[in-house]
């Protein structure tokens, strides 16, 4: 099966602007998009730059725009794409391009760090005791804890496109993960952090984030829980 890939290329040393380049090769329906990128890099053009590590949807490093949809290259099979047409590969939008499909993720991680993505509990643990969590509470956090920080959601959000200072769904999901953790003591602090003009209120329930999330997390539902929590706290 002949496959055509059109990839947005950008070399900061020679290019002023990104441009598309096309590659045709023999593919197989069970190849992932990542396999195809490897094939192109190893057999056609060694200068193609992209990030990947696990190749199995765990590390979150190969989020990219595949036929206009943000997804992981390693979790997208050719048989799920229309290979009769050219497959278009672009970097995720809304973040600066370093080279080809590699983005400068600093801003994404800064937003993630802003919500204090770690357990805060300053009460000393007494001897022979642990910080126990109920099954119900674990259940409540389970889905939000599946995030692999691929940035597909935040860069798919129209609110991010119009205002890239918007904290974004990934960071809000992480805020949920700790705000509703019964062992954590900094819920109020985190709620203050997201209750700003560039914070949670820029989410207009557009659902792009859910559509792009490779872990199929219902991100918008989690954001809504935070909005309700903030409203209950303030009103």
């Amino acid at each position, binding site marked *: 099966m002949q496959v055509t890939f059109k990839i947005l290329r950008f070399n900061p040393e020679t290019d002023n602007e990104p441009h598309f380049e096309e590659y045709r090769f023999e593919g197989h329906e069970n190849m992932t998009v990542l396999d195809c990128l490897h094939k192109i890099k190893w057999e056609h053009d060694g200068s193609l730059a992209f990030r990947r590590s696990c190749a199995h949807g765990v590390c979150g490093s190969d989020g990219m725009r595949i036929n206009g949809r943000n997804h992981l290259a390693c979790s997208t099979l050719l048989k799920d794409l229309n290979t009769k047409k050219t497959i278009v590969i672009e970097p995720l939008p809304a973040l600066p391009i370093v080279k080809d499909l590699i983005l400068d993720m600093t801003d994404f991680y800064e937003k993630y760090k802003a919500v204090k993505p770690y357990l805060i509990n300053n009460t000393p643990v007494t001897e022979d005791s642990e910080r126990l969590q109920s099954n119900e509470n674990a259940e409540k956090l389970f889905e939000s804890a599946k995030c692999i920080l691929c940035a597909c959601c935040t860069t798919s959000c129209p609110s991010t496109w119009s205002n890239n200072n918007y904290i974004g769904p990934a960071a809000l999901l992480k805020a949920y993960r700790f705000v509703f953790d019964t062992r954590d003591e900094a819920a109020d602090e985190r709620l203050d952090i997201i209750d700003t*003009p560039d914070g949670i*209120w820029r989410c207009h329930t557009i659902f792009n984030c859910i559509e792009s999330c490779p872990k199929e997390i219902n991100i918008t539902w989690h954001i809504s829980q935070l909005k309700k929590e903030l409203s209950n706290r303030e009103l």
Partner: protein
Amino acid sequence: MYKHRNSQGSGSFSWVFQRITGLILVVIMIGHYILMHYTPESGHTYDAVLARMQSNWYRVLDLTFIVLGMYHGLNGVWGIFRDYKLKSWQTITIISILIILGLAFTLWGIKTILDIPYVQTSSGLLVK
């Protein structure tokens, strides 16, 4: 870069009231559409409007529609502007225009309704 220091109070008020006013607007708008647009018999002549306005319930309903509609609409427009990165002079200009327009049109609407005379006689007939 995300600024996580907030000097402008919680955004939850605006969020909650947008939803509450939205819910009330659904109810009023359905009534408004049925009566004004799908029931030609209700009439749109001066006399017909005057007759409707004899009911204080109807006046209160219209006043609620004006106030909530203006709040909801302009707060919605403000929300859209906030989705963009604005410089502080732009923010101040836009919010000022919205508040002035909002107040002017709301007061104008309220005045229009309050100015409609009560002309009904005890027999229910209009005397004009």
